[in-house]
């Protein structure tokens, strides 16, 4: 099983004729994702690797069920594209684009809430359910995906796209496959935080443990710690915290847009403390993650 996407999920790509989008299309198709259409205004009638291109999202939703959309258009057009998808009834939207001002991200999130849609990203590599489907660039070409990602019981959530693959690869090498890996995005405000995705993993019977990758900045880790405590989660969680050096360098931005230490709650020390207090194990190195996961799986 998986969360968010599987073999049957129908997906469209907004901005499909762009350079990166063409890659995403080929990678997705090669991996078995059902990409049923693409949108680039003015390019209707063309196709990208056999995927038909339309002017509007509604041109596709009028014909068939569309479960998800991958949005990869330039930052100044992203809000419009996401609004179009939400209003056309698409319920899962992966925003790949980065450098969108957070005021606009908040608008997308607010509209999605109003319409019962879910946003992953922005500034993310998307979702991957091994041997099922992938939405976004996560893992790269299908041949590389198969090398790093294997099917199994671990849910992965990461604020870094690249580290999602690194962690999946480490887990796979230790015989721990993944149910679904989600690159949740590196911005200060994102559509779905760890805590907001936890209920989905909790409900997925195949998922038996969670691994997260986190960074300085924001309140997402504190929110997860609270969620775990309040909901008595059945899932053990192992976290890796990068950017510990940043605690000594307040006001400097490293890594992703949301990665900055502005106050005590942004520091890795504070986050690690909160997570540990909630029973979340914190790995010192990426390669320590599998043993911690196995240890906690035995305890459950």
């Amino acid at each position, binding site marked *: 099983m998986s969360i968010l996407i599987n073999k049957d999920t129908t997906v469209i790509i907004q901005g499909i004729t762009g350079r990166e989008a063409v890659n995403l299309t080929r990678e997705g198709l090669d991996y078995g994702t059902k990409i049923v259409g693409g949108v680039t205004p003015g390019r209707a009638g063309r196709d990208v690797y056999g995927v038909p291109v339309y002017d509007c999202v509604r041109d596709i939703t009028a014909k068939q069920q569309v479960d998800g959309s991958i949005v990869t258009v330039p930052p100044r057009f992203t809000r419009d594209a996401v609004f179009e998808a939400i209003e056309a009834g698409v319920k899962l939207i992966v925003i790949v684009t980065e450098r969108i001002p957070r005021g606009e991200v*908040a608008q997308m999130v607010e509209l999605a809430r*109003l319409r019962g849609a879910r946003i992953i990203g922005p500034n993310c590599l998307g979702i991957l359910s091994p041997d099922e489907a992938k939405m976004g660039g996560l893992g790269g070409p299908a041949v590389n*995906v198969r090398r*790093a990602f294997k099917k199994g019981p671990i849910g992965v959530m990461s604020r870094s796209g690249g580290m999602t*693959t690194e962690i999946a690869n480490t887990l796979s090498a230790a015989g721990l496959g993944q149910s679904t890996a989600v690159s949740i995005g590196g911005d200060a405000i994102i559509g779905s935080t760890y805590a907001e995705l936890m209920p989905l993993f909790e409900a997925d019977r195949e998922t038996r443990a969670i691994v997260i*990758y986190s960074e300085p900045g924001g309140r997402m880790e504190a929110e997860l710690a609270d969620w775990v405590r309040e909901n008595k989660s059945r899932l053990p969680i192992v976290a890796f915290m990068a950017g*510990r050096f940043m605690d000594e360098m307040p006001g400097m931005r*490293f*890594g992703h847009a949301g990665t900055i230490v502005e106050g005590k709650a942004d520091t890795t020390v504070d986050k690690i403390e909160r997570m540990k207090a909630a029973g979340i194990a914190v790995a010192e*190195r990426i390669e320590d993650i599998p043993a911690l996961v196995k240890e906690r799986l035995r305890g459950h």
Partner: protein
Amino acid sequence: MRFYEYEAKALFARHGTPLPKGQVARTAAEAQKIAAGIGGPVVLKSQVLTGGRMKAGGVKFADAPADAEAAAKAILALEIKGQKPRGVLVEQRAPVAQEYFAAVTWDGRRKLPVLIFSDMGGIDIEEVAEKHPAHVARAHLSTILPWSAYRAKEAIVAVGVTGDDLNRLIPIVSTLVEVFLRYDLTLAEINPLGKLADGRFLVLDGHVDLEGDARDKHAKLLEELGIGKEETREARPPTAFEIKGAQVDASDHRGVAGNVREFDGDLGLVIGAGGGSLTLFDAIRKHGGRPANYCEIGGNPSVRKACDLTKLILSKPGVKKIAVMMNVVSNTRVDIVARGVIKGCVESGRDPAETIAIFRIPGAWEDDGFTILRKYGVEYCDRTVSMDEAAGRAVAKMARA
């Protein structure tokens, strides 16, 4: 991106928010002239992008223009937390009866902006919230429904303000929200918002932070306020090395080889991507390594870009070797980065085998990449070697260098 106080006030002034009479001066003589123009007592404030000005001696009072000149001279010469002042703000000084606080910022958890209002201004708002919760009101704002001033009214009333004060405060606080939303700010704060003896309200100090990713969108405003494109407005100004790093990144639209930060160690780092760089920088330090720089490569940069970044790092005095490391890559290509860093070594007159302490980038096109590295005798490792272990090997080599 932080604004200086005088820039924040200039932004507020455009929207009719009441401010004390005043102007920013670059020299003591200019300050004297401004003070003479105001007539009467003035306050002089150092224009730096950091808090704690008062404690550091960056705020002074003067009753006569001659005193203002002396005070400005002292302030302009004073560095605060390593920052030289941009200028000195000379403002009319008026007796304040009470201080209020008003701010709009982001609530990351709710993913909405939040208006915070208090009738206990001038001190740390977190402290007020903790000790006197009844004196702090919060109101979350919608980002898609239109803003309406009654929300400001409700927040002000919630801390017990009524009468003429309420009616004078509503437009000031409501305008603050409008400015926040209109310019993609991450912080718009008036603290203190002073009530004068005659009942008028004035913005005594203001803080504005504009979202970095919205700079292009508001280029016209920034230009009008005199904020240069090259000003990063971070905790410290960029070094010459960092500026050159940004130039390398901007030289070519393909991929990223950016966010170069200077440190004083001997091990140059060509690392990526966003999360991978954080992980690797931690690992290098944990193993006792001394990084010469931080950077982020990703998005499949061109050979030229990777080459120029390598050359820049090798040009830094004291850099003995470089470590080239990333997480498992899927978009960035191993062979392209390998070509770039080897070329960078050769063009710097260095032997790649000696100069590259370790190359750990597994993933897309790794077979070609590893062939290139073997040909030049560079030590590399595949995905079976962890990021931490690779960092450890690089540091161990430095000890022998």
